[in-house]
């Protein structure tokens, strides 16, 4: 985990399809508690998480229900970091073939393999590390700290130029990008 972050939650799920919805619910609830994160960004993270969990469960295969998929949410003042770790056989990212362009009729031959492009599109940073003991997907959303998270003793509105802070973060008054 780069830098110093606080653990928000750690969750282990059996590698079974019905638990992906549970992971979505738990992680989206944690992300919503970060009040500076707009609803659209929470939805992006939820979809990216679903894709990572789906890949993790497929990596375990139907016969491997003993090992668990681990999901962690960490945060610091600037980032929300979600990690999905499986104990499957791993894969070579370089071997994943790029899909044909959407104008190419061959594109419709690809019913699978859309998950990683979706993850890459939705989060600010993503890293994959994989070996024969498993795969770890680390997804990062950049977000400013919530004012409420600073606590009432630390919060002095007279000292804070809110408009400048939002501008610096590239956000509007509603906290949206």
């Amino acid at each position, binding site marked *: 985990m780069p830098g110093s972050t606080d653990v928000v939650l750690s969750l282990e799920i059996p590698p079974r*399809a*019905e638990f*992906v*919805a549970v992971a*979505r619910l738990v992680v989206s609830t944690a992300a919503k508690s970060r009040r500076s994160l707009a609803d*659209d960004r929470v*939805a992006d993270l*939820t*979809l990216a998480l*679903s*894709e990572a969990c*789906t890949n993790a*469960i*497929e990596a375990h295969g139907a016969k491997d229900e003993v090992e668990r998929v681990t999901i962690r949410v960490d945060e610091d003042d600037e980032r929300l970091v979600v990690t999905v770790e499986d104990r499957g056989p791993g894969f070579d990212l370089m071997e994943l073939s790029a899909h044909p*362009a*959407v*104008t190419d009729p061959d*594109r*419709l031959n*690809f*019913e*699978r393999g*859309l*998950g990683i*492009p*979706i993850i890459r*599109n*939705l989060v600010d940073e993503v890293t994959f590390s994989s070996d024969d003991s498993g795969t770890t997907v680390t997804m990062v959303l950049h977000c400013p700290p919530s004012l409420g998270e600073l606590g009432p003793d630390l919060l002095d509105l007279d000292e804070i130029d809110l408009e400048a802070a939002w501008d610096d973060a590239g956000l509007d008054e509603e906290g949206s990008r």
Partner: protein
Amino acid sequence: MDLGIEVDEARQPFVVVAVRGEVDIATAPKLRETLVELASQGAQKVVVDLEGVDFLDSTGLGVLIGGMKRLRGLDGDLTLVCTQPRILKVFEITGLNRAFTIHETVDAAVAG
């Protein structure tokens, strides 16, 4: 979590499949079974109404792609009804909004 699927065959030659709930790795097989069954029964023009869908990921996309390929192979087609920005976004970021015909209403889909 269950996936709601209602099949309306009253608007021939179209068959309207209304989907409700979350479409993911756990629930997408039910939608796949419905589309395969319709194709095997001779349905050619299938409209999948996604207005009741709260969540759809790449597993759901894969099922829709498979259904569309199967029906186009039978000289038919699978079109979609969707106006929800969060669901449309999944099609847009994968470029599949250009592969599917996406209507705003079921009426528009069966008029086409």
